[in-house]
């Protein structure tokens, strides 16, 4: 008992100040929201699109548009560009309500999307959101960094968000993975078992568009091919801070800036 108390004193207090204080410092090599500088693009160049492993880049009006929903944040495109027209910034705020809002083009204003839920839904879930997690394929990295939010430093419970053990107790689903053929039925059944109204959050490149497995016959290309999705959180996997930021701005518990 004595040793336990001593250890408690030694380990100290670690719950982060965020969101009231500053966000935790990320690695200087962290790859967040891509930024496209179209004036730097050379005529007819498509080097960035050529190296992208998932087809996340299309060239429009002679400059790249990056679909963060498909992006693995590997930065091959930035490395391939001789003009440094693509840069991965340290902005971790990547969540969006609409699929098309995940596309970063030159004409896009920088900064995070407004992701707050509708007022009537917010009245129900804004201060208490119970989620059921369904892992539907993928590599378990998104699951691992979602689980991290339950550790002491992140302490998801302080926002009223909790992962529950039954769909009957849940207000929404948090889905990871591309939805394999073998998880299709289980995902549908879980969704159907949730009481109305319900929300769905797709976390990670797989759940948004299939990730590295996009167009494999063994998978669907993401959660919204099976159930309607209300919030997309991109990344491969998204940083816990990206997930938390998406969740609490969705609930209206934090402003974008």
């Amino acid at each position, binding site marked *: 008992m004595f040793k336990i108390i001593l250890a*408690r004193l030694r380990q100290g207090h670690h719950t982060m100040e965020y969101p009231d204080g500053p966000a935790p410092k990320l690695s200087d090599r962290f790859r967040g929201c891509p930024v496209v500088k179209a004036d730097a693009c050379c005529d007819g160049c498509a080097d960035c699109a050529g190296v992208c492993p998932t087809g996340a880049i299309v060239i429009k009006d002679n400059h790249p548009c990056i679909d963060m929903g498909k992006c693995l944040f590997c930065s091959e495109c930035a490395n391939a560009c001789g003009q440094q027209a693509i840069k991965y910034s340290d902005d971790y705020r990547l969540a969006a309500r609409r699929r098309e809002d995940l596309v970063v083009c030159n004409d896009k204003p920088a900064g995070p999307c407004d992701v707050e839920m509708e007022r009537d839904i917010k009245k129900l879930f804004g201060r208490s959101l119970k989620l059921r997690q369904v892992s539907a394929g993928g590599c378990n990295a998104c699951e691992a960094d979602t689980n*991290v939010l339950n550790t002491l430093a992140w302490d998801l419970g302080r926002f009223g968000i909790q992962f529950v053990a039954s769909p009957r107790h849940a207000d929404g689903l948090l889905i990871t993975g591309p939805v394999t053929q073998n998880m299709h039925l289980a995902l549908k059944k879980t969704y159907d078992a949730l009481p109305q109204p319900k929300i769905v959050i797709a976390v990670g490149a797989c759940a948004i568009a299939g990730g590295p497995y996009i167009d494999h016959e063994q998978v669907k290309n993401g959660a919204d091919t099976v159930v309607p999705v209300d919030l997309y959180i991109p990344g491969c996997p998204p940083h816990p801070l990206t997930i938390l930021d998406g969740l609490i701005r969705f609930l209206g518990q934090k402003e974008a800036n």
Partner: protein
Amino acid sequence: MINSHFATMTNGRAVKLDVIPTLAFDDFKKAILDGTAAGQRVSAMFGDPTSQSEVTQLYVVMADDEQNQLYIGRTHIEGDQFPSLTPQCPQVHLFEREIAEQFGLKPIGHPWLKPVRYHRSKTGRDAWNRPSDQAVLPAVCDFFQVEGDEVHEVAVGPVHAGIIEPGHFRFQCHGERVFHLEIALGFQHRGVEDAMIGGPTKRSIHYAETLAGDTTIAHATAYCQIVEALAHCQKTARAQMLRGVSLELERLANHVGDLGAVANDVGFLPTASYCGRIRGDFLNLTALLCGSRFGRGMIRPGGVGFDIDDSRASELLRRLDKAEKDTANSVNLLWDTPSVMARLENTGPLPKHIAVELGIVGPAARASGLVRDLRQDQPSGIFRFSHIPVGTCDTGDVFGRVFIRWVEIQRSIKFIREQIGAIPAGSPLVKVGSLAPDSLVATLNEGWRGEVCHIAITNEQGSFARYKVVDPSFHNWAGLAYALRGQEISDFPLCNKSFNLSYCGHDL
């Protein structure tokens, strides 16, 4: 013992296909049985289609840990069946089920022939004679059943109560006591092996990095070693050192996380809370190196994607010191708390002879007293020059599997400190040329769960004609099922955490 019928091979060295002997099936079988009787392990056994649809080639890669040597052989199977080796050599049980599922070949005499990942075969044949218009659904198969008064069955999954990957578990119970646990996986099957064929492509490294997200470094290293061996590419010592450091950081994060998870499952919250946090500190050290907590982008064919400079190295060491002290303070509470030890000791035992028979790898094998660690037995990269002593326990129970992690944590930290203290000069990344045609290479690395084995066969153009991945979980799931025999069903979470196996690494 030299396996006279098979060709010898070294971890990470390519061989031409024509030096691999094609044996008659009986000789192939005898060589495997003789090898395992002499202490060798089956690292992989897999099928490969030939130009004739009724002929399938079977390959086997055996590891002789005593001799730091691999053996490879092959045989031709004509028709749709072959005599099963499983009754005499239990460690191939799942390989044979996989061959049955992928190629529609029936291993005659297999004691429990079931699908592995629930998909249609490559050949149109079906080992279970399921009608071709009938959908193949996961976990739809026979399950072992115990009958009798008061015997009941508990079914769990695929969707679990927490944030866990999908799998289906059936327990045959008498009261609280578990007679038998059967595990059905395949829910995460996403077709990675098939997608590797024709590669390397720009997606190949990403497939490797996401075979099992928590094993990104080990799988990416195995893949890159394949490419480098086939391209005869020499990496620098600097790149090999950084790969080794990344691999040990991956081990640290996962082992610390597992100690916390085991503490949580016995209701001991101090260690559960601290280790959950400290795991993040180790993940953030990987992020310090490459920007990703899981090491995405770190391992690349030809070396590493990110270099290290003096200030980053000293920051890494500073944070490593702090994390080491926090971990020791947190983990040592476990051994000092009798109520914790009472739950860990004698729970879920896996005896040494069973671990040998099932071909168990990694910390689970070492906890059962097997001196089995690829960093020593089949070393590659930096581990050929810098050694980490192998620790073992002889209890084989949950305590053994937990304690061995603590031993490995301390040794990995020491290793990283030594490596970062003397960083070799050189370029982090060198250019990789084209791949040798008509060759085969096997790469084995000691991931944090155990043996991560990749095997590639190239065609005459030097593209992958077959790519085989064996995650350590593929060997170890049967060990978990065995460990639960005769235990209470409430011990399942604890036993499960003490193995902490990968679903996606198994399902591919």
